[in-house]
């Protein structure tokens, strides 16, 4: 997917300093691009604007040339569910579900039949070496294994674009390499991968980097 933004602006509160101020950029299919910058520079904000999780106060977000940033919530949710995958910093697994159920959650809104999702989930778990944990709950697996499960969830629907917010932030080096290798492999199949990160080692492994320096009120 060709991902782009023009004149993007965003502030968390009306009247507050803009977290994103007139940003324009594009991300080509088959590429892994890092959004870099110090803490509070708006890396995650930009990521979530591109991912249609936030609605820009001005400017456009385009997916394959179509302006999608201002679409109604239901349409944006549909686009995320069918065309995008997410990797969060702390895996964000549901402790009440098994590893397999957590992976299947990635296809909940994809519109794909459950049977095919289950088969693909098992394939992904095996590919990332956590298939032996499919019946366990997140509290019973290590942090590294949890992030690999989150990776399976993100890739379950074979998304055209993957958004990763500090995907290696809590991981050891070897697990971080696994995650980065998987993202690069997915990009090699034509997907667009955007990674928000402050880790220079991650930036090194990306095809390109976008530096953000705007400082704004921390919405958290």
């Amino acid at each position, binding site marked *: 997917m060709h991902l782009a933004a023009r004149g993007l602006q965003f502030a*968390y509160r009306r009247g507050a300093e803009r977290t994103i101020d007139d940003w324009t950029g594009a991300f080509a299919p088959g590429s892994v691009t890092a959004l870099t910058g110090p803490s509070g520079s708006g890396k*995650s*904000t930009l990521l*979530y604007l591109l*991912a249609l*999780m*936030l609605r820009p106060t001005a400017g456009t977000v385009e997916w394959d040339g179509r302006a999608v940033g201002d679409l109604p*919530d*239901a349409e944006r*949710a*549909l*686009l*995320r*569910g*069918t065309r*995008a995958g*997410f990797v*969060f*910093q*702390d895996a*964000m697994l*549901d402790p*009440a*579900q098994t590893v397999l*159920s957590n992976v299947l*959650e*990635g296809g*909940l*809104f*994809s*519109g*794909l*039949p*459950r049977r095919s999702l289950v088969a693909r989930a098992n394939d992904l778990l095996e590919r990332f070496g956590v298939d032996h944990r499919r019946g366990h709950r997140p509290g019973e697996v290590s942090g590294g294994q949890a992030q690999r499960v989150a990776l399976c*969830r993100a890739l379950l629907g074979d998304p055209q674009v993957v958004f990763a*917010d*500090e995907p290696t*932030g809590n991981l050891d080096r070897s697990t971080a390499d696994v995650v980065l290798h998987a993202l690069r492999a997915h990009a090699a199949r034509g997907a667009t991968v955007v990674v928000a990160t402050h880790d220079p080692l991650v930036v090194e492994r990306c095809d390109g980097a976008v530096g953000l320096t705007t400082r704004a009120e*921390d*919405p*958290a």
Partner: protein
Amino acid sequence: MIRTRALVGEALRSTGRHLLTTGALALIAALATAAVLLTTGNSYATEAAVIGSLDERGARVVVAYDHDGAAGIRMASVDSLSRTDAAEWFIGLGEAVDHHVDHELARATVGVRAVFGAFEDVVVPAAGRLPREGEAVLGERAARDAGLLDGIGALSAGGVDIPVVGVFRAEGPFDRLNDVALAVPDSAEGERQLRYLYGLAPAIGQIDVLADAMRAGVVASDPDLIRIEKPSAAADLERVISGELGSAARRSTTLILATSGLLILIVAIMVVGSRRRDVGRWRALGASRSAVVTGFVIEVVVPVVLGASVGALSAQLWNQAAHDFRNSWTFAGALVVDATLVAVAAAVAPAIAAASRDPVRVLRVP
């Protein structure tokens, strides 16, 4: 369609994963529904017991009487009114005419009243049998006075003998018939006048209807001279008791439903409030706000419906066993529907609040 099915399926699976809140919701709904039905059942049983004591035959008899014979109530009134549904039975009594008992053991005078209608509904045979046309039976006290306790003899007046074939016992409002004899007139004798016309209302609440029917349906020469007596005090008391017990039951029902609704709302808020990370994750994975709301509503409504159904069924069975009474299934079903609506109302607001929250705040790790 696949997404809707997937959403519903996931929400149902979620109710199974969060057993604490699911169980709490189901229990609240079950207890509330059962409490309403049991309260109603107890109220009904109490009301029935009280009214049952008021509903004795004596409290339901309406009498139309001709004090001095001037009204001219015709015996055809009994047949005429018996064709209506206003009463369980009608009985007519003629004027008391003294007859003599000439017996080796005693010589006595007994008042004899002609009787019309189903008088066997108010007397109990104590000896012998009930009379046919041209025969008579003696009340218990009259039989004792006349020395005819076996009910076999004859009553004479004006050279006419009436054979006595039995003795009866009358109770309640008809106790005074024990002092007289009742004779079934020979149909060949022609028209007879009645002095008393009794009707038994099917229920205490239908006394007024019966009185009106008798006033309208009695056949008489001068109906204006007829007096109607009805046991209004019992009917008034029945209305008061029904009203007060009914109000108490309604107040209890309202209080129970309001309390359970509040508890469901509290649990729903807890359900939604504890799932902020889940909401953020779902939104990232493609859930729209309406999908989030729908999912939470299902998670709250399903256990409430199940709980209310179990509560309703249990209470119905209990009422049947304990009080031989069961609320209508329509009422029980309405309670389940009410619980469902309460659950929807309780879940929607917190769910909308959760779905509208900025998901990024939850997803971002500081």
